[in-house]
């Protein structure tokens, strides 16, 4: 018990330490920018890991919720004069409501059939965002109003680095708490055997729905952060490729591990920055790295590292 409890705090402690210490070695604000993007992507990945890693349900349309969060902070302030912070909340509520509505039906599907249903759902959201140009600005996108706190305008990578870093730490703490709770165990149980979970008194459908809703809220908040940070948003934020990116973050880092999701986000966000040296061979290198990680680091980076350092474990 104490081992598990402390493991939770170790993950969180290391994360906070990294967030706090990284700026010491950052030579320019560009690094803050990339790191802020990592934190924001990691928020969505940690959330998706609750659905994919804990509950074992695949979503290939999760960027749809990123889109809802992003456009909430774009449209709310511009069209309705709402406060941006309030809009993050409204976006999250809208995402939760939509996840509840959609999840009730499609979470009955299994495996690849669930994958295609979620893919279709994400596709629909991206389609609406691109088509309803009067509201969303269409495929060209729309600017997002800057937010301010007590008259102080929040702009610039440094501010957003700290803001998104803090939010990621919070989101990770919540996810780790959930993992070691009644509901968290229920999710991990139904991942392995839905029937045994049901017979242990777990309302499988309800638990899956909760995981879907929680993951949607994480993604929505991340989407809002991304839009506010970028100051501009296009429907690409909800695209299929973005959904695939999120899934890849979770899987490459190590499915089921929050630390893995953060690491996966770090890898996939920073890789394109590294790979610019390859110029036109960039895509080749990216594809190769993804394949090699998945082939040689079975189960993802974090679980492989755990096995390496704890050989007596199975």
């Amino acid at each position, binding site marked *: 018990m104490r081992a598990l409890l402390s493991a939770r705090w170790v993950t969180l402690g290391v994360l906070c330490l990294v967030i706090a210490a990284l700026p010491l070695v950052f030579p320019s604000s560009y690094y803050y920018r990339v790191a802020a993007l990592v934190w924001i992507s990691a928020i969505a990945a940690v959330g998706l890991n609750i659905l994919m890693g804990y509950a074992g349900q695949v979503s290939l349309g999760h960027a749809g919720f990123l889109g809802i969060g992003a456009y909430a902070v774009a449209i709310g302030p511009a069209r309705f004069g709402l406060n941006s912070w309030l809009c993050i909340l409204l976006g999250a509520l809208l995402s939760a409501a939509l996840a509840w509505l959609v999840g009730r039906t*499609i979470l009955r*599907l299994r495996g*690849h*059939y669930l994958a*295609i249903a979620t893919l279709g759902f994400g596709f629909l959201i991206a389609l609406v965002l691109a088509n309803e140009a009067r509201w969303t600005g269409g495929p060209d996108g729309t600017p997002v109003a800057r937010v301010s706190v007590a008259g102080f305008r929040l702009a610039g990578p440094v501010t957003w680095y700290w803001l998104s870093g803090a939010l990621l730490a919070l989101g990770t703490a919540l996810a780790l708490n959930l993992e070691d709770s009644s509901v968290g165990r229920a999710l991990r149980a139904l991942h392995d055997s839905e*029937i045994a979970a049901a017979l242990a008194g777990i309302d499988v459908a309800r638990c899956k729905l909760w995981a879907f809703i929680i993951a949607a809220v994480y993604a929505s908040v991340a989407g809002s952060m991304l839009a506010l940070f970028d100051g501009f948003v296009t429907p690409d934020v909800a695209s299929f490729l973005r959904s695939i990116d999120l899934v890849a973050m979770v899987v490459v880092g190590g499915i089921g591990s929050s630390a893995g999701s953060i690491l996966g986000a770090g890898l996939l966000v920073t890789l394109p920055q590294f790979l610019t040296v390859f110029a036109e061979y960039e895509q080749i290198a990216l594809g190769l790295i993804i394949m090699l990680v998945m082939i040689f680091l079975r189960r993802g980076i974090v679980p492989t590292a755990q096995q390496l350092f704890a050989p007596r474990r199975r």
Partner: protein
Amino acid sequence: MAEFLQFCFSGLTVGSVYALVALGFTVIYNASNVVNFAQGEFVMLGGMVTVALLAASVPLPVAGVAAVFVAALVGLALHRLAIEPARGSSPVELIIITIGASIFIRGVAQVVFDKQFHKLPAFSGDAPIHMLGATILPQSLWVLGGAGAIVIGLHLFSEHTLVGKAAAATAANRLAARLAGIDTTAIVSLSFALAGAVGAVAGILITPITLTSYNAGTLLALKGFAAGMLGGMGKPLGAVLGGLLLGLAEAFGAGYVSSAYKDGIAFIVILVVLLSLPQGLLGKHSAERV
């Protein structure tokens, strides 16, 4: 009436394209339960290699056969170098590997070929066939016929050849098949090569209609995957049915409802079908054993 028929023809044209792509998914899924997101790249390779060879003055039939061989080799390599070493990984991990592979193949294609759009000449000319006031391009019939021929070919292969039966056994139960003396690894390799070849044939047939570029595979994979799931994964006939239904949904959606939302309409059709038939149109309902 003419309008309705035109929408039908459009749906059949587009649907048979999706069906051809979905057939490639089916081949690999059947032998190994892997959903291969690089299937669209096989289709792209079929088109682009043929285009490139044609540009080098190779006659079309020779170029086509060469493209099929190239794609089959790439399929084989994909299995041997990326899927087989990762055996035992979960389905979603394998999907990520195939996505990595698709990025890789695309990356190579953009360097080897170029980033422009290309087309192939239609096999039987561009003069549309008129029928009751509607028109269809002869190439659409080639695509439709190609899908039919592949379904029949796959059926004959799995029912009437020893290798095909071994593949069916491998699909049903890999361990049991191995105990029965079947080299299951070779069978799965073969299925990847076959899927590469099927994809390339698809690419050659559809390029006169859809055009192609190094980037064409992504969307085709998406639609082909959707069509395969709609039909019931692993069923060649289901893949064709799913593809045609998807194409018709898009055509009638564009014609009668809203062209801006036609892709959305297609996905709504998929959702409705799956919610009433959770294993797709032709999928078997398997009761869970405990």
